[in-house]
């Protein structure tokens, strides 16, 4: 009985750990533009037409993307980009001056300290609720923090808005890139 319990615990640990390793060597595109993967928290499922998966070679052959040697490529297709703004455009809309572009961007991720390439971030303006400049308590470094509405586009007010598949896939991508072991939708769709 104890042996069975131990085996179960080991299996649980392996299942969680495998989820964390899943997003290695993956890229995210919005139409034909590579974007920072943290953008999945800020894109609005209701304006997304589809999200497709390709291997690097496939994406290169079919969409002419520079993805040779990449294991997994996710392409978000969105024709109506009227609601989507780049990182610098967002800073401008929230009245930050040009000096702010050089600050590190922190999105409260449990996995990453700062966004590696913040200039590659894309935002649906309706998903952004707050843009802050904070001073880190310990180091005294200024950094930018951006809040978004709800973490799971598949849940909350988004339920019923836009394509269900896009909502599910966005939620799944959040788990995939952030390494959530406990994201229900991530676990449910990680085999796709």
């Amino acid at each position, binding site marked *: 009985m104890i042996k069975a319990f131990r085996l179960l615990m080991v299996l649980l640990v392996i299942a969680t750990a495998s989820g964390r390793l899943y997003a290695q060597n993956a890229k995210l595109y919005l139409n034909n533009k590579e974007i920072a993967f943290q953008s999945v928290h800020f894109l609005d499922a209701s304006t997304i037409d589809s999200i497709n998966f390709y291997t690097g070679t496939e994406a290169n052959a079919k969409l002419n993307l520079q993805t040779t040697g990449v294991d997994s490529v996710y392409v978000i297709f969105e024709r109506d980009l009227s609601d989507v703004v780049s990182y610098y455009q967002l800073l401008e809309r929230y009245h930050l001056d040009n000096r702010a572009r050089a600050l590190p961007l922190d999105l409260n991720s449990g996995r990453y300290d700062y966004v590696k390439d913040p200039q590659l971030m894309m935002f649906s303006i309706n998903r952004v*609720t*707050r843009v802050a*400049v*904070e*001073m880190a308590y310990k180091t005294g470094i200024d950094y930018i923090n951006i809040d978004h509405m709800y973490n799971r586009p598949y849940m909350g007010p988004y339920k019923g808005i836009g394509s269900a598949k896009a909502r599910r896939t966005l939620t799944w991508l959040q788990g995939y890139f952030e390494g959530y072991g406990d994201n229900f939708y991530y676990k449910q769709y990680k085999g796709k």
Partner: protein
Amino acid sequence: MKKAALILLIMLTCLFKVKAQHIPGSRIDSLDHRPLLMINGKKVDPLSFFTLDRQQFKNFKVITPEQAMKRFGYDAGKFGAIEITLVKEAKLLNWTQLAKRFYFIADQLPVNGHFNWGYGGLDFNDPRLFAAAPSTITYFSIGRSHEAPYGQVVWIAQRGVLPPKKEIKPTPFDKEIGAFEQIFIIESNKRSAIENAKPLLQG
């Protein structure tokens, strides 16, 4: 009959008070008892008080409502006034300087705002009159308002941890400072209680 009329009158008064507190974007209501604050002779937003270093107070003068109304007018002085004089070395950032310190463009910022001093928080009378000692503010943001008219709002916060009581050095004005501080703490607590009660009232 008289009793019934009295109860009806009390109920109507309560209804009016609750309604006044629900005016969107409005802070001026029955809970507002903030005195006017003058620092070094300049009128500032009363919440600026929380950013000051008390060791730098040279003088702390309490002006009664009667005197304040004579000096500053009825609306400005009806809850009294406080005049603080700081030592020469004390530095204060005005609204433009503070916004610049946090990489924002002051002219473009919204005129509604909220300040959190760590153990409480209130909306500004006017954020453009807010003055703060440098290095006390650690958070400056623009957020979307959850209340109509759903525009942008400034949110400012300072370090939330109070130093241990042993480390707080006494000043000659501790009694007056304590009484002044209580006005804001009481208002903040009452507003939080109203805010927390809203979902219950809505069922």
